[in-house]
């Protein structure tokens, strides 16, 4: 439709974090600020490197990322979220699901026993904090036992933009709290 109106259209569909970096550079080129984009992306790539270096050789805990609380929904391997979990040094519990954003039964989560549960929350009302607390009744799940049930601001991991690196760093801190992140800066 936009093409019919003679408005130039460029399509970007990045799935991986590295593709997002490339996309930012492409947008920079298209908008005539190639140099600024390249500088920006170089610093983002450095931060990615920082995270992947830090988690290298560490254990890979099983991570359950909750993108919707009711019904319980997660992400499979065809998502940027999956890529972030992997880069942050975790294993995505729902990676093998056929549906991109699969609905999972509570029973399946209990059976799989994730070591970290991260709830992606779209708003700051008490709703998600309540959802977080509700997990604590399922105390055979390792994540619950160790208290590794967290909230993450969904804006940080849902947007294919520079912010996603904030999300990656945040995610890595949640998955690997044992690493002394501040000293690494």
């Amino acid at each position: 439709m936009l093409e019919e109106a003679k408005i130039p259209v460029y399509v970007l569909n990045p799935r991986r974090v590295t593709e997002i970096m490339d996309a930012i550079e492409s947008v920079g080129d298209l908008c005539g600020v190639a140099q600024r984009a390249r500088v920006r992306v170089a610093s983002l790539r450095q931060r990615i490197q920082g995270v992947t270096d830090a988690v290298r050789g560490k254990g890979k805990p099983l991570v359950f990322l909750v993108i919707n609380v009711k019904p319980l929904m997660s992400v499979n391997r065809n998502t940027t979220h999956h890529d972030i979990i992997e880069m942050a040094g975790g294993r995505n519990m729902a990676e093998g699901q056929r549906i991109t954003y699969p609905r999972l039964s509570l029973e399946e989560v209990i059976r799989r026993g994730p070591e970290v549960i991260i709830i992606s929350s779209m708003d700051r009302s008490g709703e998600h904090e309540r959802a977080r607390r509700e997990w604590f009744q399922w105390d055979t799940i390792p994540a619950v036992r160790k208290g590794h049930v967290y909230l993450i601001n969904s804006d940080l991991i849902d947007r294919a933009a520079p912010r996603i690196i904030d999300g990656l760093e945040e995610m890595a801190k949640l998955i690997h709290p044992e690493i002394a992140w501040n000293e690494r800066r």
Partner: protein
Amino acid sequence: MRGAKDQIVTPLRVLSIGTSLSIVLIVVALISLSMGPAKVSLVDILSWCAGMGSVDETASMILAKIRLPRILLAGLVGFTLSLGGVVFQVLLRNPLAEPFILGISSGAAIGAIGGIVLGLGFTVGVPLLAFLSALGTILLVMGISSRHGGLESSTLLLTGVIVNAFFTAIIMFFIATASDSRLHSMLFWLYGDLSQSKYIQLSICLPLVLIVSGVIYLFSRHLNLIVGGEQSALHMGVEVELVKWVSFIGISLITGVVVSFSGIIGFVGLIVPHLMRMILGPDHRVLLPASALGGAVFLIAADTVARTIISPSELPVGVITAFLGAPFFIYLLKKRGSQWTQD
């Protein structure tokens, strides 16, 4: 005309049908208990039920806190909707009647969706709002259609249908303007879902359902007479208006309560009463308990399919009730006729 229908209803017959359906109910519940992503064998289930712990901690938690409350709630919801279906079909003198027809479903849905929009929780806030708005709706419908203290069936039916249509428009407005995250929760509630079943919900529903179904059962002879026509029932000494008011309010109350926890589960209240009528004949002394128990069996079975068929994912149970129920219903309808008209 044919076999079962002509059988004389004796207390013994009521008891034997009740007992056999209860046994079916228990067997179906046990099988359902053994099914799900976590593998637990039927033998382990039986020993677990007997209190001998041969299952591990995780399995025991799954059985006690996820599967059992869910099966019990499914049974109770099926029981209620199906009982409501029988009563509404008689009192509204319409084979298409089901407990939602007077606006309970859309009334409850408005409340639930309002609760979701406001960000209330699914344990108390959403069900409470759903229940209150279901009750408000049914009182509105009954208020509009009552004339000189009497409830006329066709007026009641039409009012229910129109109020349903009006509320559905509001629901569609909310859905069209909902944000992504809320949309999932809304659709989920509208399709019926039992995955959040908890014992607390049972303890709220069970006493109400028991009391109301007891009262309705006392009316079973009256219902038999009302089937033959309200005028003739009146002449035979049935307080038709009293039976109608009490039944409508009682059924609406329990339907509103269960639906506020389960969401809208269609089809159960329509087909199970007809199935039982086809199989056992139209005498309400048999039909009421048989439909209620049959509804429980049917919904437990349907929900078991819903939670296992695409495991580890789940389907809304409303998808299954119609998908499984409709073909079976058509088959019986072809074979036996509706048994609706008193020929």
